[in-house]
């Protein structure tokens, strides 16, 4: 996995609560067997108006956000389905960090697996950032994961918190499966013990 250390990028606003993964990437884009090329499907139904023309109010159709890499949004972002296609589509479009007051759990996990940094900030801070974004043509932020800071162009900066283990994985771009495989002996010992006490858990499913 690619590491995430610092990132400077333009912020795009998505001022909605409860954005679900069915909106982030609608089901017709889930038929792929690949992880890449999913930006076509990103917010596919919200990009367009009922008549099929681009919705001028949606950030993806506004030229000033063309190179945005930080998404600013509201509570419970990523609720609904577990589809990892949601972070894949965001990443494919170029999003590397998401700022919201809260995230749905599976989506939040899935971001870390794809070196997207989801940052939880309190609602007032999020509101302030929305105000900044609407006041300026371009609004850039710099995120420093090691220092756990976000700084504005005016160089004012504030802290965010993050789980230390997840932070290390992102900073070093660690392969989670590789990490677990280093515990092979623990897993084997565990299995041997459990097989003794609860053998029915180890019945093979045969067809």
């Amino acid at each position, binding site marked *: 996995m690619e590491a995430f250390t610092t990132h400077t990028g333009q912020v795009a606003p998505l001022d909605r609560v409860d954005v679900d993964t069915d909106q982030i990437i609608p089901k017709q884009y*889930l038929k792929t067997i*690949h992880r890449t090329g999913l930006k076509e499907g990103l917010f596919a139904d919200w990009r367009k108006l009922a008549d099929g023309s681009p919705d001028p109010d949606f950030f993806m159709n506004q030229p000033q956000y063309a190179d945005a890499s930080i998404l600013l949004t509201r509570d419970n972002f990523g609720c609904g389905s577990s589809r*990892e296609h949601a972070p894949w589509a965001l990443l494919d479009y170029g999003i590397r960090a998401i700022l919201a007051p809260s995230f*749905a759990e599976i989506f939040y996990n899935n971001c870390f697996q*794809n070196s997207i940094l989801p940052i939880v900030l309190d609602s007032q801070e999020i509101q302030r950032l929305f105000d900044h974004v609407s006041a300026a043509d371009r609004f850039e932020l710099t995120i420093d994961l090691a220092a756990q800071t976000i700084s504005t162009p005016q160089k004012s900066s504030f802290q965010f918190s993050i789980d*230390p*283990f997840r932070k290390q994985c992102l900073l070093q771009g660690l392969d989670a499966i590789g990490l677990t495989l280093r515990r092979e002996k623990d897993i084997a010992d565990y299995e041997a013990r459990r097989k003794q006490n*609860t053998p029915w858990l180890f019945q093979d499913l045969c067809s």
Partner: protein
Amino acid sequence: MAAHTLFDKIWGPHVVSEESDGTTLLYIDRHLVHEVTSPQAFEGLKLAGRRPRRPGATLAVPDHNVPTTDRSAGIADPLSRIQIETLEQHCADFGITLFSMHDVRQGIVHVIGPEQGLTLPGMTIVCGDSHTSTHGAFGALAFGIGTSEVEHVLATQCLIQKRPQTMEIRVDGLVSPHCSAKDMILAIIGAIGTAGGTGYVVEYTGEAVRSLSMEGRMTLCNMSIEGGARAGMIAPDETTFAYIKGRPMAPSASLWTAAVQDWEKLCTDPGAAYDRVVTLQGEDIAPQVTWGTNPGMVTGVDGKVPDPRSFADEETRDATTRALDYMALTPGTPIVEIPIDRVFIGSCTNSRIEDLRLAASYFKGRKVASGVQAMVVPGSGLIKKQAEDEGLDAVFRAAGAEWRESGCSMCLAMNADVLRPGERCASTSNRNFEGRQGKGGRTHLVSPAMAAAAAVTGHFVDIRHWA
């Protein structure tokens, strides 16, 4: 001895190792796989030169993309076909058991696990699918994961987790005979909100929960994720054991006896503390109907479409306005005056035999209203067969409803079963998100009984006062 919750009693024995910061390597007993969220995981394994650690712990089934009409001709959509063929190929390469689209045991992944006796109390169960919470009905810790984690479980039979918090949701008393587990869970989500369960594992307790059949318990746990909780669970009891006994993949003979002895200990001890407790009174729950674009936007059938101005905070007002706009509903409209075009009875929430029996009891001797199209999609091939043995298919057909092959169907509309733009559907599924059942389609979530009654009358009805 310290008092433990049901969750503690499952989590503890599954900890392989734990770091000082609480990061835990958790052992996974059973892994379910479907065609949509697995191809990239299998491909990742192959690219890294890894093999599944315990192929015998995994069961695969295609369900999301399968046609619900005659399957002998194969799948028309080439992308759907490739996705299913890819699953078959990966399973063959790695020695994973697969129920193919032509196997009578095929069905929705969360329906067939319990049906086969694969889902057992005390287990950890995962699947690349958020409705894995369904399996918690058996007193298992079951939750949905992303595709990277699917790969992780295949390679290591473990997941890296942090211990969640626990929430008790207790439903005291009994619900009206016209209400079902679906109405209970919709009322619960209406009470806690779609993010109310975030960070928690929910245990459902109380008389109304205990008196549910296994089918009802699965419906309840299924929609835990709609309340934000990754997992919901119910302590196993005689109802649970009776359901499991004799199923093909369940333990038998001396293993069965040993297992039941172990399972009888799986309950929350008196005095054990949850991090949060929510209580509802069963008698207060009316048949539920969602009016908006998430499952928390719900009211009793005797209610009205709300006025956005009645909400205090701006975010809720905005979200409600947007939802009513999408749903083409006017504030103040009585729910029973909302006309519908389509009815979908199916999905991992409500496609089990009990759901079909209930729906059939409302269709019996009646006709689907003119202009309404109703579809009944059983959750598995075996349920379909059982329903046909009981003559339920004849009841549906006589009423003018379509009787289909099993699969996810119009819950997600990845196959050919789709709402057309603007169509309004009474659906027994679990998500009423914008476009979920088809772009521009409008979904109202209800119980199977409410869906069947709506099919017959062409609008919602309060089945408590309906002859």
